[in-house]
């Protein structure tokens, strides 16, 4: 863009912009920095620095309750990621490709609502439905399955938003070309559409996996005896006060998740760029 005349760029404008962004990032990252720093603190008090130590990390290895919770949470998060991709793709496909069908407004409303609906409401109502179901049908028992159902409901909504955005940005000519060359709708989907939306599937998996790994409220309503997820363990301890062992666990979780997210997004954007380059080359040819 070539502006004939600078629009607003006084020096103060730039300075103000940088300052505002900088301050907002300090606000966003300050708690994370504090968590990480105090996890290496030898003193159990979260405000007094008592020298560096790894004692809280050593303690984690003996923390059976937390480790069991972690294993359960990882399994639920994995299943949530997979399920969200499947349901999210179907829902996104429905919303993008089928412009008119009976109850479309209600459908899109139900897809979007879990994004903002308070979790206590979703948790309570889903629990009562599952309890009613159990009375009539004798299943499901509360535990991994019921927590997964709750996480899947919210995960599907997030996955639909991500995949829908991608489907809408697709060049329709690609699918049309495949159809003109004699491909059936199913073939078009599996051979053309699906490979093109893979990046959005990966990012929805990452997003719903981490959301599930973090959830307290839905899990609290939907868990049964013996099914305590890691966030539930952390939450019940955090309610009682500051505990340095939570800081140590937090540092590990935040480290692993951020590395996963950064690596995932770098991979996705690299694949995107390569595909865009191939696409451009194909069109020039």
């Amino acid at each position, binding site marked *: 863009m070539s502006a004939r005349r600078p629009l607003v760029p006084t020096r103060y404008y730039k300075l103000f912009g940088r300052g505002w962004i900088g301050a907002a990032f300090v606000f966003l990252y300050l708690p994370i920095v504090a968590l990480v720093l105090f996890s290496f603190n030898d003193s159990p008090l979260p405000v007094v620095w008592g020298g560096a130590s790894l004692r809280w990390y050593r303690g984690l290895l003996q923390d059976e309750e937390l480790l069991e919770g972690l294993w359960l949470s990882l399994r639920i998060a994995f299943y949530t990621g997979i399920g969200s991709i499947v349901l999210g793709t179907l829902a996104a496909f429905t919303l993008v490709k089928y412009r008119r069908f009976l109850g479309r407004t209600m459908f*899109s409303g139900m897809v979007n609502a879990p994004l903002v609906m308070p979790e206590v409401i979703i948790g309570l109502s889903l629990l009562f439905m599952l309890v009613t179901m159990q009375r009539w049908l004798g299943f499901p028992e509360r535990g991994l399955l019921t927590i997964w159902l709750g996480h899947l409901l919210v995960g599907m909504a997030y996955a639909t938003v991500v995949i829908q955005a991608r489907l809408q940005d697709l060049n329709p000519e690609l699918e049309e070309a495949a159809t003109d060359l004699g491909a*059936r709708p199913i073939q078009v989907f599996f051979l053309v559409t699906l490979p093109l939306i893979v990046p959005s599937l990966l990012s929805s998996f990452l997003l719903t996996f981490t959301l599930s790994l973090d959830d307290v409220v839905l899990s609290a309503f939907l868990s049964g005896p013996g099914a305590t997820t890691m966030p539930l363990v952390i939450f019940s301890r955090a309610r009682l006060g500051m505990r340095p062992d939570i800081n140590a666990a937090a540092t590990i979780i935040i480290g692993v998740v951020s590395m996963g*997210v950064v690596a995932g997004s770098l991979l996705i954007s690299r694949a995107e760029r390569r595909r865009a380059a191939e696409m451009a080359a194909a069109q020039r040819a």
Partner: protein
Amino acid sequence: MSRPLVASFFDRVHAHPLFRRHSRKAVIALPYAWLLVFFLLPFLIILKISVSETQEVLFAPLIRVEDTSVHLSVRLGNYLAIATDSLYYKTYVASLKYAAVTTLWCLFIGYPFAYFMARARPSLQPALVMMVMLPFWTSFLLRVYAWKGLLMEDGWAARLLVALHLDDLLLRLDLISAPGKFMNTPFSLAVGMVYTYLPFMVLPLYATLSKMDLRLLEAAADLGATPWVGFWKITVPLSKAGIIAGSMLVFIPCIGEFVIPELLGGPRTLMIGRVLWDEFFSNQDWPRASSVAVVVILIIIVPLALFNRYQAEAKEARA
């Protein structure tokens, strides 16, 4: 399987009359049925439980058929209690107030944030978006918990606030109860909520602001508008969809927030999410918990419809 075999399999599937007639329906039906069963049906069930008589451990059916007459029994006692007990009324009002305050602060901090991000060098923007997203991906529970340490006596944030003499101001506004003590007050709750929900405001705002056609501002400047006028008359109206989407993404979930008030709030901070939680987990009063939830749903139904409309509009605009 060789290629022709796959193709002939697809041909066969497609030629089948069942597929010809029903493939489209099947794609729509699966997510639709899932949502009806696991999203809509549960609401009908809590609506029913909220007006049910308890019969030992079960709930009595609403409609009974006896001989020749049909009995419909609807118990409105729970709603009556919510309407007359001032604690519920105060809690609903307080929850709405906290949600509104949180939304306004997120907008105040988030709008300039998103604006300057959208006007930053294009090569920098993906990294900035990533940096906003990253806290949102990493555990929300742990980040809220971290504020406990920052705001407790001698915590980093507490010391900074005292050094800036902001505690006097907060005390005068009745947001904290004693100088230097920030935890378990309306102030600590608001900080936690603004902190948690800020990315939800920034990302939709950034999405609309970064797509804006900057030539409009040039045109306005050519016609003699000052940058300030251009901002208020062009940039702000064009980002309306982002403002509404972001505000609803913050406002609606804030009303029923539970984890933040539980960790950072105190005896003075009434929130409806906590009341619902206690009715269910401590008092085990299912009908009462259900009716509290039904009233929350009634409150959020209008903002929810607004959110859906702008969400749909934003998507159609992309297409």
